[in-house]
């Protein structure tokens, strides 16, 4: 502050100066400053106060006051103040100046203070900044881009390794401090910032003088001039060594971490804090065999399978910052739609946080424990299997220590031990459960097993509940790695039963041995090689060979059976039976040479107990055999004696048999004869009675019994003549009869039987019961009467028949006589034929004299007409063979005179002996008349048939009910049915239903009235329902003689044509009448006008009317002519006068006549024809030509041509005339019909042109009468061509030649 005085003097100086200036100015500009004197002085005051302070201000004020006073107030140039105004002025000036002073100095003071303050602040802040920068190790720099000068703060220098204040401000120095590698980068960064007007920020290294490298971060910002060019850049630098180190360290650790992760054998996944996947390591890919790409978008927090497993909460906790270690899980990527195999994994989630605790990422390490897991699972399964096996094992399986402590036991074992539960058993010592007798052995056994020696032991055990068992234990050492004492695994079986069985077996074996030894039956056994294995005592006793000698003596069989043949036979037999046989006897040679017979039964040991092949049991039957032999002999003797005795007995027996047989036969014969007798006796229709000689009835057969039933009388025991059946009157007669019989006479009589009451017995149909009685005495050899036989035969029927026969014979006789029929009776056997007189008369024999003429069969045959004979005989034969075939035939016989007569012969076989005809009777009648009548009828019928068959009218017949029985061909033709179809009611199908109804309704009515019925217009239909023909049907009923209706006959007349014709006529009349009336109308109307003088003839209208009437007359005339022409032509009233004429002439004439009309119509006529000679009616032909030409011209338009030509038709000898026009043509459907009457293509046209509608019809008629054809061809709008042909055949046949020029 040594400048203060300096400054003060300047301040005062300034005040003086400013005052001076102000004065000068004021004086200079006084004229302009009226009233404003002090202005410049004020300025001076301000200035001096401002720059000098208050004192200089005061100085200035005083000076100014003085100046003003001196120079500007009156009096001028004096320091006195003249006026009060000036005083005031000056006073104001002083005041104002002081105020300005004060204010200014305050201002200055405050400014000063402010400056001071701000300086202070600045100093403070720059201190602070410096401190801050120092603390932050930041330096500041300021680079003047224009001059290139750089200013650094001391810190900056320090940061760059330079002592503060040593920086020279040059860019190169700066650059030199940089690490060489970073220089370019920095330069570039700076450039970029400058170009882009962005903040410059760059990290780079600097090398200090001591060669230490430090990291610096430089920031800066440029300021730009108005042109956008950077002028200055300033910023800061900061030592970022720590940061960089930290960064590097971090990067390094990151890298280390990453490489760790990459190389880790454990599958690792890194997730961001939101769960999205950051990366996976190769190990992961290998484990899951899935490409990473497949995991795009994978978020672990959204893994459904993790959620499904139930690990989602744990995972979420990991993402919340907790370390999570999970046990093994089964994960199948397929569940999430990823490829890759499923694995067991142990996931380990490790969150990585930054220093604030914020979660950066979560690392998931999964250890593939699939193999382990699978092993575990397999092990578990095995264990389960094992457990299952052990549980199911029926034998005890246990594990015990070497001291006998039970470690594990299966359920079977529990049963043996008789423990209730595993808990009870485990931990117990099992040695006490062993029977004391075996305990020591068991202990040793267990020890041995524990030491490695497996073994088996049998012992008795006692269960906890006291049950004794035999047990068999198999023990093996069990190495349990974690066990301190050795363990033994023992499988123990309850062999109590077996033991018992063994004991029993032993016992039984012993018993068996005893038995075998002692039994009185030989027992041996052989092996396969026929070595004896077993040889019991009895064997020894019998054979003398001891067991020792026999067993394993291979030659023993030869010793037993020395006879080779015998032995071989025997052994073959054994083999054949498979060594199984019973009770075969073989002779064995004993040791002492004797032979004994043994009955052997052999069994081949099927159970193949080792070594034994065949058992044999034998019984010494030698003695028995001997005994048997003796016995046989005794038997034989006995039998012989018996046989002898039997023989004797037999003989006696036979004799007796014969006797018996004979007697039997006799009895049978007797029986038979009795039966026969009774058969006859009983069944006989004869009434047989047997009488004692005294007349008592002692036997009667059935018949009287029957009679008894009728008569009510018993016969047996009664006297014959006292029987009531004889009737009172004849009883006496019967006595006499008996007497006569006794005398030896065979008495016969007929007698009627009586009922008990005396009335005559009657037959059911009238007539009496009559018997033919025969009484006869039967005498014995001596001539004495033994008994009387009475036989009675019921002849009631016979009597009746006889009576009837007589009556009929009489009747026949009368009949024959009356009818003049002949009778014949032919005895077939003898061939005789009886012919009645009438027959013979018939044949012309004169029998008036009576007598009979017998003609035998042969002769009768000869009388038959040779034509008729064959079939007469055939008929006869047929009837003879079969009575059902009737014999009734008509044939001719020759009269005596030689003429032929027709007879009708009827006959019947009346007597047959079974099938054989014996007798035939018949009648015959002269039927000549009848035959004649028949012939006449037949002829008449034939006539009728011919008539009807060929009738042009249909004829039919029906029966009384209306069922058709006959139709003639014409009727069939009309109706369209065949004869068969019409029969019955078949015909009705062909009639129109409506007409049929009328017919049927009427029929029945008319039948009653017996009148002819006529039905007109009956329609017969075709099968398709259309009308076939119209008919007029007349029906007449036919009755027989009594007036009963027998049939109907009818006629069917085809009226179709007639109806058609009628219809055509009606149409024609209708049309013609119209055609006639039309011109008449105009004529009458016209004339009426004139006649009534309504119109004057001379007037214009009158002329018109007259013209119309005249035209009408013409038309009428033409019409009438044409009609008449046509009718005359049709009815043949006009005969064509055919003569030879020339076609050329005709044509020329026609052209001539039509030329006028043609010219008028403007139509050209063109003719091309040749000259032919034909036979025709020239006038008529001309008429045709003119007609056709006329039509052609009428229908042609002006300027067209009509062509007319004649030519010879190649294939049919005819001339073809052609008239061709170019008119409107004719529609196809009218080409035929225009030739009909009154048919015009368009009626009005032709009428307008004066046509009648009949022209073409007339043409056709004429042409057809010439045997030609007329037709038309036409194309609409183009024209029509009319053709007609006239044959010239007639010309040739008439000998006229047709000249042909082409």
């Amino acid at each position, binding site marked *: 502050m040594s400048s203060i005085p300096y400054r003060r003097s300047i301040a005062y100086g300034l005040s003086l100066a400013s005052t001076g200036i102000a004065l000068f100015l004021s004086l200079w500009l006084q004229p302009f400053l009226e009233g404003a004197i002090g202005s410049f002085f004020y300025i001076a005051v301000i200035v001096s106060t401002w720059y000098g302070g208050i004192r200089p201000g005061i100085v200035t004020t005083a000076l100014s006051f003085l100046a003003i006073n001196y120079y500007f107030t009156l009096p001028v140039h004096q320091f006195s103040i003249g006026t009060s105004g000036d005083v005031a002025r000056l006073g104001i000036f002083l005041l104002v100046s002081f105020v300005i002073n004060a204010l200014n100095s305050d201002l200055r003071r405050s400014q000063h203070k402010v400056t001071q303050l701000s300086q202070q602040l600045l100093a403070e802040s720059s201190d602070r900044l410096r401190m801050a920068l120092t603390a932050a190790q930041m330096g500041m720099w300021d680079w003047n881009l224009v001059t290139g000068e750089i200013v650094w703060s001391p810190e900056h220098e320090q940061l760059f390794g330079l002592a503060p204040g040593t920086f020279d401000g040059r860019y190169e120095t700066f650059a030199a401090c940089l690490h060489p590698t970073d220089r370019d980068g920095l330069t570039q960064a700076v450039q970029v910032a400058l170009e882009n007007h962005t903040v410059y920020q760059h990290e780079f290294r600097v090398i200090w003088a001591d060669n230490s490298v430090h990291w610096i971060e430089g920031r800066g910002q440029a300021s730009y001039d108005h042109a956008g060019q950077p002028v200055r850049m300033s910023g800061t630098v900061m030592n970022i060594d720590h940061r960089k180190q930290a960064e590097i360290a971090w990067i390094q650790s990151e890298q280390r971490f990453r490489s760790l992760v990459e190389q880790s054998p454990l599958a690792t996944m890194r997730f961001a804090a939101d769960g999205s996947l950051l990366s996976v390591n190769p190990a992961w890919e290998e484990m899951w065999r899935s490409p990473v790409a497949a995991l795009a978008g994978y978020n672990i927090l959204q893994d459904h399978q993790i959620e499904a497993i139930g690990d989602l909460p744990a995972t979420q906790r990991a993402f919340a910052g907790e370390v999570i270690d999970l046990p093994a899980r089964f994960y199948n990527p397929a569940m999430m739609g990823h490829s890759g195999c499923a694995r067991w994994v142990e996931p380990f989630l490790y969150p990585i946080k930054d220093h604030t605790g914020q979660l950066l990422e979560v690392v998931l390490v999964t250890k593939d424990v699939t193999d382990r897991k699978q092993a575990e699972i397999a092990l578990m399964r095995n264990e389960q299997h094992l457990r299952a096996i052990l549980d199911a094992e029926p034998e005890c399986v246990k594990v015990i220590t070497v001291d006998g402590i039970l470690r594990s036991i299966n359920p079977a074992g529990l049963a043996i031990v008789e423990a209730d539960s595993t808990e009870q058993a485990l931990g117990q010592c099992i040695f006490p459960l062993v029977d004391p007798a075996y305990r020591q052995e068991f202990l040793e056994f267990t020890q041995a097993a524990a030491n490695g020696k497996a073994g088996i032991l049998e012992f008795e055990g006692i269960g906890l509940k006291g049950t004794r068992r035999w047990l068999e234990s198999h023990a093996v050492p069990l190495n349990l790695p974690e066990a301190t004492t050795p363990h033994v695994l023992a499988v123990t079986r309850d062999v109590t039963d077996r033991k018992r069985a063994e004991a029993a077996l032993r016992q039984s074996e012993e018993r068996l041995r005893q038995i075998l030894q002692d039994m009185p039956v030989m027992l041996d056994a052989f092996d396969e090689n026929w070595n004896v294995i077993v040889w019991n005592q009895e064997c020894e006793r019998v054979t003398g060979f001891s067991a020792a000698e026999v067993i394993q003596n291979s030659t023993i069989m030869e010793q037993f059976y020395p006879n080779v043949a015998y032995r071989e036979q025997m052994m073959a037999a054994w083999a054949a039976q498979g060594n199984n046989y019973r009770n075969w006897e073989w002779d064995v040679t004993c040791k002492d040479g004797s032979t004994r017979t043994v009955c052997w039964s052999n069994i081949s040991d099927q159970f193949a107990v080792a070594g034994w092949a065949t058992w044999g049991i034998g019984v010494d039957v030698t003695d028995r055999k001997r005994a048997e032999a003796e016995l046989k002999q005794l038997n034989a003797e006995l039998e012989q004696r018996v046989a002898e005795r039997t023989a004797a007995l037999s003989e006696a027996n036979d004799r007796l048999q014969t006797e018996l047989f004979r007697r039997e036969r006799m009895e049978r014969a007797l029986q038979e004869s009795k039966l026969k007798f009774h058969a006859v006796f009983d069944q006989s229709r004869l009434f047989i009675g047997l009488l004692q000689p005294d007349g008592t009835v002692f036997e009667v057969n059935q018949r009287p019994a029957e009679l008894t039933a009728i008569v009510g009388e018993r016969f047996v025991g009664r006297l014959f003549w006292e029987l009531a059946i004889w009737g009172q009157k004849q009883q006496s007669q019967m006595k006499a009869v008996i007497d006569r019989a006794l005398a030896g006479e065979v008495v016969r009589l007929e007698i009627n039987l009586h009922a008990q009451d005396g009335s005559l017995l009657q037959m059911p149909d009238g007539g009496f019961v009559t018997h033919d009685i025969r009484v006869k005495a039967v005498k014995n050899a001596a001539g004495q009467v033994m008994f009387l036989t009475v036989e009675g035969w019921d002849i009631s029927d016979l009597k009746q028949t006889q009576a009837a026969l007589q009556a009929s014979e009489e009747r026949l006789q009368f009949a024959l006589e009356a009818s003049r029929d002949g009778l014949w009776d032919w005895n077939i056997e003898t061939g005789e034929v009886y012919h009645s007189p009438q027959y013979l008369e018939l044949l012309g024999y004169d029998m008036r004299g009576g007598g009979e003429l017998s003609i035998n069969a042969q002769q009768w045959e000869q009388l038959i007409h040779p034509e008729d004979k064959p079939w007469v005989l055939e008929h006869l034969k047929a009837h003879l063979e079969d009575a059902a075939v009737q014999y009734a035939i008509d044939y001719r016989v020759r009269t005596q005179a030689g003429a032929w007569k027709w007879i009708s012969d009827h006959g019947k076989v009346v007597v047959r002996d079974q099938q054989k005809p014996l007798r035939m009777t018949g009648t015959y009648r002269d039927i000549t008349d009848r035959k004649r009548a028949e012939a006449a009828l037949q002829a008449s019928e034939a006539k009728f048939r011919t008539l009807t068959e060929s009738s042009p009218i249909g004829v039919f017949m029906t029966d009384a009910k209306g069922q058709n029985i006959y139709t003639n061909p014409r009727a069939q033709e009309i109706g369209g049915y065949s004869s068969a179809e019409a029969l019955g009611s078949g015909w009705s199908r062909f009639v129109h239903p409506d007409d049929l109804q009328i017919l049927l309704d009427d029929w029945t009515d008319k039948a009653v009235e017996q009148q002819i019925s006529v039905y007109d217009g009956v329609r017969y239909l075709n099968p398709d329902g259309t009308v076939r023909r119209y008919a007029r049907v007349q029906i007449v009923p036919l009755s027989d003689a009594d007036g009963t209706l027998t049939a109907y006959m009818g006629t069917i007349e085809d009226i179709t044509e007639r109806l058609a014709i009628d219809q055509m006529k009606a149409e024609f009349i209708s049309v013609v*009448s119209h055609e006639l009336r039309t011109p*008449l109308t105009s004529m009458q109307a016209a004339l009426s006008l004139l006649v009534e003088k309504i119109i004057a003839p001379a007037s214009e209208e009158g002329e018109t009317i007259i013209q119309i009437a005249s035209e009408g007359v013409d038309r009428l005339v033409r019409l009438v002519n044409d009609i008449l022409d046509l009718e005359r032509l049709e009815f043949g009233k006009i005969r064509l006068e055919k003569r030879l004429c020339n076609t050329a002439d005709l044509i020329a004439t026609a052209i001539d006549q039509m030329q006028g009309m043609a010219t008028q119509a403007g139509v050209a006529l063109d003719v091309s024809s040749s000259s032919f000679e034909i036979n025709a009616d020239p006038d008529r032909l001309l008429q045709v030509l003119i007609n056709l030409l006329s039509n052609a011209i009428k229908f042609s338009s002006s300027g067209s041509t009509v062509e007319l030509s004649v030519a010879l038709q190649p294939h049919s000898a005819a001339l073809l005339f052609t008239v061709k026009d170019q008119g409107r043509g004719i529609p196809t459907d009218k080409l035929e019909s225009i030739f009909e009457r009154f048919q015009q293509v368009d009626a009005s046209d032709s009428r307008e042109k004066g046509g009648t509608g009949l022209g073409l019809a007339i043409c056709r008629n004429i042409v057809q009468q010439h045997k030609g054809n007329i037709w038309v061809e036409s194309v609409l709008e183009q024209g029509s061509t009319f053709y007609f042909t006239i044959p010239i055949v007639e010309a040739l046949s008439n000998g006229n030649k047709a000249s042909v020029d082409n």
Partner: protein
Amino acid sequence: MATKRVLIIDDEPGIRKIVEIALNAIAGWQVLVAASGQEGLEIAAAEQPDAILLDVMMPGVDGIATFQQLQSNSVLRSIPVILLTAKAQPNEQHQFTELPIAGVITKPFKAPDLVKQMQSLLNW
């Protein structure tokens, strides 16, 4: 009193002419002519005559068909129609009896008779 106008429909030119002259001369009626049913319908529709004489036998559309056409037209049906026919037999005329015509006049006719019959049938 307005002149009566009669339309005659007939295919015969002679008849048309005569009738025209006759009706004109005798009764002073104005006559319209048509040569076919078709033409007749057109003229009737256009001119609305007071009566129509209609020939029955015409080629193409005959009188009966023309009559039915007239009937089907609501305007034309009110015009009285007299049929002209050559059929004089009752059995031929029975088909006319069912039609709502004013009357039937048979051909041929004398001109005065025609007028008289018309006057009677039409009440003119």
